[in-house]
């Protein structure tokens, strides 16, 4: 503690001039914080968020089908807990030689605190509060189980575990959209956070393979492939996303005979995908450029085919280099989904627009926008954290394990 005080003193109050500046800045900060707290606790009317919480979460999703979304959330919580636990069961050393992830008690504490407090603070009904608490308990328990016993699982089973996520994604699609005996819920009825996450996850998952293919195409020796990729990338990068979305929404209806055009939500999701793929291709290309040519030549001289060399030697290194840029792209893609509100879809921002126009909640703009900002921050922070964790785990300069 004394060292902290000494440090503060040497950094903030070294000279009288420093002290004046520090005090002035601290006063401004304190005044701003006090003003914000006064607004948030006294003036703001949070009923707009409480009453419309379902709308923000899932839009106009039919209430009698919402159990499907709860089931999906439970499956996701279980999968997340299992993944977290398995990572804990197989820690790796990072650059500094520390085992990672090891000390995640703080993360668990924060998660539990948030999960306990947020549903309560939002004033959700007791039944829904209880559901959130049970979901959190499920996640934490499975994390503990996987962390405790995960290391002892047979290797064959461990190799199968990552498949859980793609399978879960497909299951989720069926749960959300219906089919296989479930009542169909048209995409027009998806909304809020559900639509935002669905559109962005769809685009993120699909733009990666397309982007990699485009990047490889751009570096290919075949002129047709090369020029095709260049043309595509430059065309997409030359057009603002909103114009492409408008084109997808309004022109496709003319070009395809009635009924053949995919639903508006899917059209928007595909436009987002193709848009992101062009940018991602450039990020991947920068990664490819960072891999020395010798790597490919060495791999070929070892007898690997071109495809094998690419798959086993070049791409893993290139993608690792490109990871920060790619995640930046994913985060901006997530935020680009707000443009869906401009083509009349009820994504988070679209729901916010209509909630703010509701005669019962006129003038509650600040509360709604703040809620939106927090939700988006959480999603983007999760992406950022995930990417940093991945970088750490893939760090080629990590201290080799002693085991």
């Amino acid at each position, binding site marked *: 503690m004394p060292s902290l005080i000494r440090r503060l003193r040497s950094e903030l109050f070294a000279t009288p001039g420093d002290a004046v500046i520090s005090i002035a800045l601290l006063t401004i900060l304190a005044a701003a914080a006090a003003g914000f707290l006064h607004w948030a606790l006294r003036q703001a009317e949070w009923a707009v968020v409480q009453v419309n919480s379902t709308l923000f979460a899932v839009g106009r999703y039919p209430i009698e089908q919402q159990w499907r979304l709860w089931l999906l959330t439970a499956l996701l919580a279980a999968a997340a807990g299992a993944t977290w636990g398995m990572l804990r069961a197989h820690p790796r050393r990072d650059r500094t030689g520390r085992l990672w992830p090891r000390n995640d008690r703080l993360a668990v504490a924060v998660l539990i605190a948030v999960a306990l407090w947020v549903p309560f603070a939002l004033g959700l009904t007791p039944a829904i509060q209880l559901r959130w608490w049970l979901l959190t308990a499920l996640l934490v328990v499975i994390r503990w189980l996987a962390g405790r016993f995960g290391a002892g699982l047979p290797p064959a089973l461990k190799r199968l575990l990552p498949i859980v996520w793609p399978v879960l994604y497909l299951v989720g699609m069926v749960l959300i959209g219906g089919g296989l005996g479930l009542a169909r819920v048209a995409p027009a009825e998806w909304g809020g956070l559900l639509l935002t996450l669905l559109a962005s996850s769809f685009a993120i998952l699909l733009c990666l393979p397309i982007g990699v293919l485009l990047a490889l195409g751009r570096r290919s020796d075949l002129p047709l492939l090369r020029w095709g990729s260049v043309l595509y990338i430059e065309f997409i990068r030359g057009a603002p996303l909103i114009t492409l979305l408008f084109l997808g929404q309004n022109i496709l209806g003319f070009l395809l005979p009635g009924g053949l055009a995919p639903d508006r939500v899917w059209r928007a999701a595909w436009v987002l995908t193709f848009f992101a793929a062009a940018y991602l291709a450039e990020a991947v290309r920068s990664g490819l450029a960072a891999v020395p040519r010798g790597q490919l030549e060495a791999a070929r001289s070892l007898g690997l085919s071109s495809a094998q060399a690419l798959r086993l030697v070049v791409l893993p290194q290139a993608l690792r280099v490109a990871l920060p840029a790619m995640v930046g792209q994913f985060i901006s893609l997530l935020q680009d989904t707000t443009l869906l509100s401009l083509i*009349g879809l009820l994504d988070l921002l679209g729901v916010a627009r209509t909630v703010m126009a509701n005669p019962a909640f006129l003038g509650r703009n600040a509360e709604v926008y703040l809620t939106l900002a927090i939700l988006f921050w959480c999603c983007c922070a999760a992406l950022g954290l995930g990417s940093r964790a991945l970088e750490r785990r893939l760090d080629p300069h990590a201290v080799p394990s002693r085991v």
Partner: protein
Amino acid sequence: MNTPHTTTAPLRCIGRLLAALGVGLLAVGCRPEADGVQSSTMGRIRERDRLICAVDGAVPGFSTVAASGRYEGIDADFCRAVAAALLGDPEKVDFRPVTPAERFVALNSGEVDLLSISSTHTLSRDAPGGNALSFGPTFFYDGQGVMVPAASGVRRLADLAGKPICVESGTNTELNLADRMRELGLSYQPLRFQSGEQAYPAYEQGRCAAITSDSSLLAGKRTGFRNPAAHVLLTELLSKEPSAKVTVQGDAVWADAIRWITYALFQAEESGLTRANLQAKLAEARARPELAELRRLLGVEGDLGRQLGLPADFVVRVVKAVGSYGELFDRHVGPSSRLGLERGPNRLWTQGGLHISPPFR
């Protein structure tokens, strides 16, 4: 409601070109109906058994989404009235939120059957050489108004000389303001905002001396202010904005149906029909042959509905679903609602207003 005029122009051209193409295709595909009244749009709606109705989704009192996920407002209820008349069930509507910029393209591309959005009826939107749309009767008389803080002492437009005025950029609102101020020879500082969500807080914080938009919208937004009583609307209007329901130009039968569903709402109020007394009135009409006018309106005698390609009792269905025009107005925007708009020119002609239904005969 005003449109961003800058974005529609190129879309309009494409829209027109492709609409011509689309109409051609539809003409090939449509087949005659048994009763001789042909409409490709109505055939399409009956076939899918759903009406696809475009609403704005973010206009207080006209169309918003309630916490339950249900669309509410005058515009949303008009969609329900049409679905009730055509399909017999007011809930057979797929609401399609569209933004002002893309509404006409959505209509011309066949994405939606009907625009139930406050769209000002203008020559260029109506004319074959312009947007080539078909407008129903005026559904809501609005006008561009100006709101000022009551304490500012501004009572006339002339008092705003040299002062900053908040306005949404790229809309007819902005053009009307510029036209009117130039006419009056007044200089002013326009403070342009991308959207109303930015403009109204700026006005409330005192960044401009006045804000201008459609009167109904101003009055609605005012109810959300911290102190609504501290703001007044000037009596001077900058423009007239009669708004109507819009359909494609190529389908006159469908346009007629929409026109007479609108008139049915007016006539229901004039004839004293409400949701509450509908069954009683219907029984009365059945029992007393001398009430010829009421009997024709309710489809007890004659085939007025069928002449339009609608069921004979379409007026009964409409009133049962949403009530008369007066009920619609009072429920969503009238003095007893949260928005508290005066009816003003939106009264019936019998009460000194502008709404009139031609005779049902």
